[in-house]
């Protein structure tokens, strides 16, 4: 069965430190991969996406993610977090054979940034 796993429910990181959020997927083929961020009371904002090609993708707000086929992973990273990065982060997958089909979301990782 297809699934998206975000192993870390909650991460606390100091401002200025690096951040890595994990995402693993189980899928028949390489899916379309996305990271979204949700600030409190807000909607889902797209950070970055991967369809094919270069496995290191750059997104907004200084985020990047690396697709690793061998590990079925699409981890999100930021070298130096800012207090405004405190939010919930969702990994999502879409089907490459059903380009406009539904997204499947991970359970999310809550990021807390401490001074």
């Amino acid at each position, binding site marked *: 069965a297809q699934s998206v796993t975000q192993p870390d429910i909650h991460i606390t990181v100091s401002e200025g430190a690096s951040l890595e959020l994990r995402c693993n997927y189980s899928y028949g083929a390489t899916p*379309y991969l*996305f990271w*979204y961020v949700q600030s409190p009371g*807000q*909607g*889902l*904002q*797209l950070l970055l*996406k991967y*369809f094919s090609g270069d496995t290191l993708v750059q997104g907004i707000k200084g985020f990047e993610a690396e697709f690793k086929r061998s590990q079925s992973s699409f981890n999100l990273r930021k070298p130096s977090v800012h207090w405004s990065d405190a939010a919930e982060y*969702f990994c*999502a997958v*879409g089907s490459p054979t059903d*380009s*406009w*089909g*539904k*997204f*499947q*979301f*991970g*359970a*999310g990782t809550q990021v807390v940034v401490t001074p």
Partner: protein
Amino acid sequence: EPEVTQTPSHQVTQMGQEVILRCVPISNHLYFYWYRQILGQKVEFLVSFYNNEISEKSEIFDDQFSVERPDGSNFTLKIRSTKLEDSAMYFCASALNQPQHFGDGTRLSIL
């Protein structure tokens, strides 16, 4: 940048009442979606809509739910007789090409 807009931002409704959640997708988009997020849980797919008909729906999307695109701009989700467990954040999304663009959501509270 064009946005998906959802109204209202918060809806409070008595159990058993009908509720309509409204969305204005991005104007040139062709594919429309509803998702929901129960508090503390993951975002779940409800339904997708294309060419004036449902493309796909989840097991959550039972006979109590319906969607409509009544004119060229709005996309609505109706819940016929709300239950307590319908309390959630409901997100509308639209797409022309991937990725889907999401609205800010409507928080539905059933009393």
